[in-house]
């Protein structure tokens, strides 16, 4: 068994993950959805949004019908694809006719394989010149800008993925909940711990269905990628709103590399896996597609935008409200700037938006119909208010810069309207959106005392602020570059910005807090790989339940000591004469010392303290159990499966008990 962090192990699992992601979210949508306008990046993002929407809606339906599995997912996708293929122009595509006719000519020896393939590849550019033109079309921004974006993406990826590659333990206490809920979806159980949007867990489970790797890897890889995609989504939105790369580059850089400037204590969430960040990823691209629909009236943009709204609604409530704020700002700015031209489209968006909101609320109705109540901790958190005095967050230089961007954007709007006389609602939209989020961040907690707003408004501001700065930077750069008349100036400025921010940023990989030793998680993976599925049991701390769920069985150390008699043949229940045939074939006891504890400064430490006391009591009970066992079985002491600095794993092979009739 390769260690989690070993290069071959990571290569194999990334390959599986990458293939599943590519097939599901990049390749299949090309067959499934109508091609939308724009270059490959627009296509890819639009397809991703629509595919995630389809996966989540389909997942909800299939889980509710107890049909959520690979075969059903494939069947639905194939049926939808067939419908598309048979109703599209593909039917008349001459390329296909040539391909089939060529195949028969090939069989008759009239064509060589090369001739056949060449003959059928009519749609591809034949010569170097057209290939080059195609490349230019694919990369509309300057290559240096692309390179700069690549550098930003690489650094942002390094900061987030280092933890995912080197540390197998799930991140933060939320990681275990996400992992368990993902596995419940896999077992076709909705709202196991109460009603909570399950879109993200369906997304995770669906990748897992096609990646065929331990769900832990899906958990570890998806979160960092989501936050990386938020940064890239910011680049996409700003660069498309402004039709220039520089603002997008700056926004991506600020969020991806220097996001800690706004996120502060929530910065570690960038390397963890949470539904909130997943929902955030869709906010800016969705707003852009809705804007594009208002501007051009294209159906594909309308559906992409609505899909994005639906995804966010089905994934996270706070993100949905944030997107709602964006949509309101967008509609308002559209009505102010282009009232007559866009009124009909605004109206259409309004009523269709109501339908999407209803769709997003459907899972709640479904959960209530199933007799479930709201997830207790989430409901308490959402409805909870902070007692005592709530202070407005202290504003730092970058907060002020972002707030100042509102003024720049308002000025941009005014100049556009007065000087250029061209309706450009994107500037006003940006100003309203950034201004609205800033108000929520700065005063929302003070006014409402709401726990969610107090603790999470910074996460919203961390997205809106780089967006505002990026938009404002472009607004400033546009007249400057127009005066200087050099495209290189913008690129050079981008290079300087990237260099300065990278050099001045703390490029320390993000490592969120853990709830257990990495060693312990690594041993879980080793056992899960080496032993038959669901034929083994882990005896260990409660935290590890989510890891083992669906792969094997889990029992707490305390229950183990109470249940099994150490003086009899292993593993015999107390009061029984023979080993228990119901016990799993292989039983592994995780003796973790010293007990892993989160830092005392961590806000969850007080919540975990009773659990730590219980685990310490369990370990003491196990010491007594072990002593009694070794006394009763002097010739067969406990077998050690693994021994490391923080962990000893004991192993009972219960084959004899299992084979007994």
């Amino acid at each position, binding site marked *: 068994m390769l260690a989690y962090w070993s290069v071959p192990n990571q290569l194999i699992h990334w390959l*599986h993950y990458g293939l599943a992601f590519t097939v599901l979210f990049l390749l299949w949508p090309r067959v499934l959805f109508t091609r939308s306008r724009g270059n490959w990046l627009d296509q890819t993002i639009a397809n991703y949004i629509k595919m995630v929407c389809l996966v989540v809606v389909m997942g909800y339906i299939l889980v509710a019908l107890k049909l959520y599995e690979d*075969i059903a997912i494939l069947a639905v996708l194939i049926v939808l694809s067939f419908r598309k293929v048979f109703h599209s122009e593909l039917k008349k595509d001459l390329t296909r006719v040539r391909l089939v006719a060529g195949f028969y000519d090939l*069989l008759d020896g009239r064509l060589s394989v090369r001739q056949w393939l060449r003959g059928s590849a009519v749609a591809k550019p034949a010569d170097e010149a057209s290939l080059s033109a195609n490349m230019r079309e694919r990369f509309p921004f300057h290559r240096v800008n692309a390179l700069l974006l690549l550098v930003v993406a690489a650094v942002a990826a390094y900061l987030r993925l280092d933890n995912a590659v080197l540390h197998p333990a799930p991140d933060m206490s939320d990681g275990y909940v996400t992992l368990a809920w993902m596995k419940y979806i896999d077992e076709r159980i909705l709202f196991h711990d109460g009603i909570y949007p399950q879109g993200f867990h369906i997304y995770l489970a669906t990748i897992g269905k096609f990646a*065929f790797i331990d769900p832990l890897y899906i958990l570890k890889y998806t979160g960092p990628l989501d936050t990386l995609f938020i940064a890239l989504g910011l680049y996409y939105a700003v660069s498309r709103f402004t039709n220039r790369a520089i603002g997008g580059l700056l926004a991506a850089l600020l969020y991806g590399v220097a996001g800690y400037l706004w996120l502060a204590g929530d910065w570690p969430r960038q390397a963890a896996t949470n539904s909130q960040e997943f929902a955030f990823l869709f906010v800016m691209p969705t707003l852009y597609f809705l804007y594009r629909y208002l501007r051009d009236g294209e159906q594909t943009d309308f559906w992409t935008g609505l899909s994005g709204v639906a995804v966010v609604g089905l994934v996270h409530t706070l993100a949905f409200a944030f997107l709602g704020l964006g949509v309101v700002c967008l509609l308002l700015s559209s009505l102010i700037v282009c009232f007559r031209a866009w009124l009909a489209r605004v109206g259409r968006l309004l009523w269709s938006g109501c339908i999407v909101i209803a769709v997003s609320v459907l899972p709640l109705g479904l959960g209530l119909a199933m007799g479930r109540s709201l997830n207790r901790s989430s409901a308490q958190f959402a409805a909870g208010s902070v007692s005592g005095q709530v202070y407005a967050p202290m504003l730092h230089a970058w907060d002020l810069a972002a707030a100042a961007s509102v003024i720049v954007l308002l000025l941009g709007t005014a100049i556009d309207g007065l000087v250029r006389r061209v309706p450009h609602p994107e500037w006003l939209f940006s100003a309203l959106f950034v201004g609205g989020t800033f108000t929520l961040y700065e005063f929302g907690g003070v006014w409402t005392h709401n726990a969610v707003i107090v603790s999470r408004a910074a996460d919203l501001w961390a997205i809106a602020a780089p967006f505002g700065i990026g938009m404002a930077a472009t607004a400033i750069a546009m007249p400057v570059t127009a005066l200087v008349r050099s495209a290189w100036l913008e690129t050079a400025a981008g290079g300087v910005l990237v260099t300065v921010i990278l050099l001045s940023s703390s490029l320390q990989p993000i490592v969120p807090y853990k709830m257990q030793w990495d060693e312990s998680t690594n041993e879980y993976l080793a056992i899960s790989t080496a032993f038959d*599925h*669901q034929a083994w049991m882990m005896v260990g701390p409660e935290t590890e339940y989510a890891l083992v769920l669906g792969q094997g069985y889990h029992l707490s150390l305390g229950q183990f000591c109470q249940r099994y008699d150490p003086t009899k043949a292993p593993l015999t229940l107390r009061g029984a004469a023979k080993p228990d045939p119901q016990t799993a074939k292989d039983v592994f006891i995780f003796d973790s010392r010293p007990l892993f504890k989160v830092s005392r400064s961590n806000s969850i430490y007080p919540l975990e303290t009773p659990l730590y006391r219980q685990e310490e009591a369990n370990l003491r009970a196990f010491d007594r159990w072990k002593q009694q066992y070794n006394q009763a079985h002097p010739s067969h002491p406990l077998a050690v499966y693994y021994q490391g600095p923080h962990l000893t794993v004991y192993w009972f092979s219960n084959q004899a008990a299992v084979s007994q009739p």
Partner: protein
Amino acid sequence: MTTLHLHGQVSSAQRLLEEVQSRHLHPEDSYEIAALLESMGWNDQRANAQFGAAGVFELAETLWGMVREDIAFQPSAKDQRPSVIRTVFNLIQQFARGLIFALPIALSIVAMLTLRFSLWSYQNLTVSLATIIAIGTILSFVTVGGFTQAIARRGFYYVYQGYYGMARKVTFHFIRLGLLGASLVCILLFVVNFLVNLFPVNLLLLMIVYYLVLNSIWLSVTVMYILRKEILFTGLIVIGIGLIGFFFRVLHWNILVSQIVSMLIVSAASMIIVLWLFDRAEKKAERGIQPKLPRLGATLYSTLPYFLYGVVYFLFLFVDRLMAWSANDGFMPYLIWFRGDYELGLDFALLALMLPMGISEVIVTKFMNDVSISQTQVLSKDAHVMNRGYVRRYWRYLAAMFAAAIGNAALVYVGTQWVINRYLGSLGTRVEITGRVDFVFLWALCGYLFVAVALLNAVVLFSLSQPERVLRSVFPALLANMATGFLLSRWAGYDWAVFGLVAGAAVFMVLTTVQVRQVLARLDYHLYFLS
């Protein structure tokens, strides 16, 4: 038509034509007849002396005209009906041929019940191994199904005309394609398994070995079928099972090794025998014209519907198993997990297909003979009467088939219970019919009953060269089978996948019945089109 007048020697010419046709029933053209005449010792002088023809070629031209207008020389068609004894003998022969085709399956089931192993299965395998071998077997049926149908169609076409050389060429062409396809499937399996971790590598390798060996066995079975040597193959199966017994019980080899070695021997022996059979048939056949095979593209294009039918049909037969075995009931180490009680129920029920297959062979032969006779006897103005008559006759045959299939199913159900409870019990062999096995057995009997009727329809449609109509029936049947099996196995329990088989078979039966009815209602048109 030739200008030669036969000077009242029509009966002599008819006799000569019959002699020519005894050497080759369906000559291609007048040149082939000329060649055959020359090979029979005819020359220009003799043709002139006996028939007043200018030469052999003119006589051949005359005979060719008679072949093309043989309706003019068929008034005695009724007189050519065989005697009662001959008819009964033919019926028994046809019935046995149909029955023998299913004999290897029956033999395997009997071997499993008595010896606990057959050529490719073993009762005491671990579930993992049973899963792997079952998947390998199903995969072999599905991927080779298309090729076996293509071989049966094209090979039989040439064998029927006496072109053994062409039959051999086309047969081995498809065998090569089949083996190439199987190799590609193996590569694909490796790649897919690497990507999706379906099975451990050692188990995958085992699956591939079984898959490849079984593939070559099915291909050779088909060739023996078109050469009408089903008994030979049944014998080979018996020898194979005997070899396994020898290796496993006497030499104490591992059962898997015993089976693989035995299957390899059976496979190699079948291929050698097939080659020898072709060689012998070619030597016996008249050394006349040896036409070239049609272009490969044309051959593949014309056999494509049969190929597709083969693939879809075998998928239809096995898809309910896949649905049952993929239903997650808590313990699913792999995506597919073998469920013995489901398989056992289906295996017992499979016996219900044997008798109907024999009856089907008899009905179709009789039906097509009658059609052939009617084609030469019925005047075109009476075509609608003929069509109606055949529709009525078809309903009668269908009712007979249905009744026979029901009776047979009841017999199989009672007989199997008796054999297992009484006979095997007395032998000390313990086979347990659990409630689940019984449930699957009963409903699968119902499903196979429908399949039997559907197969009768399919063979009628194939005989009338209407493969597309069969395809149009079997494909919806497959979908019905998959959808019903999937939903019920997930909602009610994996054994409920058997209702997929029942629903699919019912769809297959109804749709093929509608198709046959449509064809027979316009039989004259279809016969004209065929000729």
